């Protein structure tokens, strides 16, 4: 063979070397190197922590049923929302949407056998429970009290608990960075032959944009909390104004990460929606290139808007303007996505599976949350709204109504691939209605409460209730609806476990979808693809009965399920 003839062909031969699956419980399920198992680990860890963080949220809601605080002291309340926010952001959503979905789906969709660095992947996962332990153990020292943002100087009063908070976030930051790096390399180097950048499924574009932000922004977070840690433990003056430090500096460093962070959890959800909508509308995605481009645009713009969290916090007025304008600018690529998705369902043949319901609900609730973000981005209006429950309303519409809804759309969609069985459709649909109604009932009233003058992070609001007596009613209303959301999540957890045994068998491609993961058996074998597939066309071509000519991967190899390679699209929702 001549030197220099190395082509994709050879490169993929290299990958055709299949390792035998690992033996023994520990190697198989605990310290597994298999991206699918790691995906499961993220999924169950994330879900478990969501129970805890969600229960904190319910305690927060219960406290607010009475203007004088119904169930706990101020300090306990402050601890609750701090832990709720921290755990939801770093231990629930980021692990779920990047860790669980990214790990399970991404290598399958690009036709790879695993991620680029399986060891690193395993290490990234195992950091998560460690960080969770550190974070929750801080509650033994009284817990962090200063919100999920932990602004100094108030957070410096948290002592040991505050230092543990920093340590936990630092650790989880390392995990995110490594995952981002791993996914970047995997997507850039390990796509199946023929899968050009414009033939990647949109979920891959989303994962790529997310990985970029994870890799770049998270380090800045590590530095922010690292410096805070040094100040806590060794009293190194970075932020202490009495010794020349600056408290505003921390806010810059924190938001430089944490603004991109909010897109870290929404963009994978965008990716999910881009998969689910075409599949169940039985149409190609509308405007593939613009959606892919807007994911990248958002991930880059995300680095340029962080000061919109700091408009009244002590930055020079002239600095507010560029950040306002750049924040507005993000509305344009996001709008492109929303409109493209609407065009995708237009003229389709829509099957109302639970995934589809969540994706449709996502379009409505996310748009609402995005639009309230546009209100906040306007400097003068933010001078009124900052620090109120309006902000809380905004971001729950985008995190719960966006990221969590996207995630909830993904679970029934890929569950059959992951387990070989369908999720119980009726329970999942019930879950959707509970979640959707609960979400709107909980977070909609926050908008006018905030505008009327209710600050966020308040353990009591007797003073406000005197000025605006309806506040009591609306807070109780919110609390009542928040339990519908809890029920929906509880139902999902039940469904996931119940269907593991009782779900109907899924077959290879229950949805008749058109991406690579649906060409292999469910659940996929250890090595995913017996032979790395060749990709000939873009995804979502529903008018072609056989989108991928992957004829070597005969289904006879996996006699458990099905007989044909790419089954004729079956009536969707067959699992119900």
């Amino acid at each position, binding site marked *: 063979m001549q030197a220099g003839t190395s082509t994709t062909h050879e490169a993929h031969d290299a990958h055709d070397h299949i390792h035998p699956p690992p033996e023994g419980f520990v190697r198989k399920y605990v310290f597994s190197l298999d991206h699918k198992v790691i995906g499961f680990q993220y999924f169950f860890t994330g879900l478990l922590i969501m129970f805890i963080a969600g229960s904190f949220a319910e305690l927060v809601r219960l406290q607010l049923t009475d203007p004088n605080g119904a169930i706990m002291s*101020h*300090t306990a309340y*402050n601890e609750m929302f701090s832990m709720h926010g921290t755990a939801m952001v770093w231990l629930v959503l980021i692990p779920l949407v990047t860790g669980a979905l990214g790990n399970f789906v991404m290598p399958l969709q690009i036709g790879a056998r695993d991620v680029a660095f399986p060891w690193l992947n395993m290490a990234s996962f195992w950091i998560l429970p460690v960080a969770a332990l550190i974070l929750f153990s801080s509650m033994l020292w009284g817990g962090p009290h*200063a*919100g999920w943002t932990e*602004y100094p*100087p*108030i957070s410096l009063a948290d002592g040991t608990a505050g230092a543990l908070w920093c340590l936990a976030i630092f650790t989880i930051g390392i995990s995110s960075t490594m995952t981002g790096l791993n996914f970047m390399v995997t997507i850039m180097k390990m796509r199946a032959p023929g899968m050009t950048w414009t033939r990647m499924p949109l979920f891959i574009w989303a994962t790529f944009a997310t990985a970029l932000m994870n890799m770049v922004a998270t380090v800045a977070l590590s530095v922010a909390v690292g410096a805070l840690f040094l100040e806590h433990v060794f009293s190194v003056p970075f932020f202490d*104004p*009495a010794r020349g430090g600056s408290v505003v500096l921390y806010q810059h460093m924190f938001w430089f990460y944490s603004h991109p962070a909010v897109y870290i959890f929404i963009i994978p959800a965008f990716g999910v929606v881009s998969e689910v909508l075409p599949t169940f509308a*039985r*149409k*190609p995605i*509308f*405007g593939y290139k*613009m959606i892919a481009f807007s994911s990248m645009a958002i991930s880059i713009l995300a680095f340029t808007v962080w000061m919109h969290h700091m408009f*009244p*916090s002590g930055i020079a*007025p002239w600095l*507010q*303007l560029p950040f*306002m*304008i750049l924040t507005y600018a993000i509305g*344009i690529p996001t709008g*492109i996505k*929303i*409109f493209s998705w609407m065009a995708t*369902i*237009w*003229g*389709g*043949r*829509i099957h109302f599976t639970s995934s589809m319901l969540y994706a449709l609900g996502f379009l*409505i609730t996310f*748009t*609402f949350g995005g*639009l309230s973000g*546009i*209100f906040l981005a*306007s400097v*003068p*209006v933010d*001078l009124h709204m900052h*620090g109120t429950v309006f902000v809380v309303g905004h971001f729950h519409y985008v995190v719960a109504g966006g990221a969590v809804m996207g995630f909830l759309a993904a679970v029934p969609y890929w569950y059959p691939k992951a387990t070989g069985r369908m999720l119980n459709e009726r329970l999942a649909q019930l879950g959707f209605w509970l979640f959707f109604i609960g979400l709107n009932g909980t977070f909609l009233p926050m*908008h*006018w409460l905030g*505008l*009327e*003058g209710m*600050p*966020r992070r*308040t353990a*009591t*609001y007797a*003073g*406000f209730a005197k*000025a605006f007596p309806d506040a009591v009613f609306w807070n109780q209303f919110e609390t009542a609806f928040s339990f519908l959301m809890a029920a929906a999540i509880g139902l999902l957890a039940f469904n996931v476990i119940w269907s593991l045994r009782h779900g109907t068998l899924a077959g290879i491609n229950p949805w008749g979808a058109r991406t690579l993961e649906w060409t292999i058996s469910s659940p996929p074998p250890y090595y995913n693809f017996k032979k790395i597939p060749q990709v000939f066309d873009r995804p979502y071509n*529903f*008018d072609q009965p056989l989108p991928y000519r992957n004829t070597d991967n005969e289904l006879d190899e996996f006699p458990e399920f099905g007989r044909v390679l790419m089954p*004729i699209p079956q009536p969707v929702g067959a699992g119900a």
Partner: protein
Amino acid sequence: MFQSPSVVRFKGLGPGFWPVTIVLALLSIANAWYFLYGNIDWIMPGASQPVADRASDIDGLFKFMAVSSGAIMIFVAGYVIYFAIAFRARPTDSPDTIGVQIHDSPKLELWWTVLPALLLILLTALSINVWYKIYFGTKAPALTMEVIGHQFYFEFRYPGLKTSVFSKTEPMHLPVGVPVRLLITSTDVIHQFWVPEIRLKSAGVPGLVQSLNFTPLRTGTYDIACAEFCGADHSLMRGKLVIEPVATFNKWLDSENKTAAAGGGAINLAGGSAGTGKTLFAQKCAACHNNPPTPFDQKLVGPGLLHITDDPAHPTLVTGKTPTPEHIAEILQNGFTGPIGTMPNRQANGLSDKDIANAVAYLTSLK
């Protein structure tokens, strides 16, 4: 083995597209009507009768957004629901019935890029206009006062008042129709001064002073709230603001003024020894003021005190008074909390009358 798929067909934009569009448009108009002409006080406090000059500007911006994004929301949600119903799968479908196979439409995509961009440009222009008014467009303030955040109350300092007003016990007072400037800071953690009816807020950041300018327009009593998390009792950090006619305000100010200062009466400064003062300064002041004294802007905890009586770059004392020995002595007696921090009073610093005379003699000798 594979059947070729059967593609759905329908006329125009779909059954019922235009009627639905008209309904959505009407809803948007109703929404606009409500926000422009309805009474939205239950959403925005005091929207019908602005309490301060910037409130109506900000409300205008808010209404513009409520109208435009309300329309966007109505159309997005409306079309999503309508498409979902109109293009639902039918029981009669064969398994391979598929939707219309279109991949893109550059023209349409151009529209939905350009139109939102235009709207956002308009919004930017409107926002900048209000932003400019807030920060640069105010008349010269007739009343400049300080608002200092503490855990968990606000302290208000009026020019000429010897003692502060504390939000725990007393409301803040402002004269109606008079342009005011609030200088906002904090001595411990970050707080935010916010009066919902005035629509403005600003953080009190330790080590930093920010200003808010506005003119109160309507008398009444309003709530003050702290809008930045500041510790256990953040939720109790509230106060009242009384906006009253100028005459009433002045009367109140006079009645407050009579309260005596805590530091004792005027001290006889004659006979102070600069040499003894120097030693005293090294003992009691060097922890916070650079020793040997440096120019004003080189602060440690407190400012540098070199040339305090004749520094062209710093013509007045931090109290705003002329740098006479008497005024310096006042600071040593009563202490002072300003943007830089807190200068302790004589009790805290342990200064006798003689000490004060010596220290002042020393400081004034630094020519």
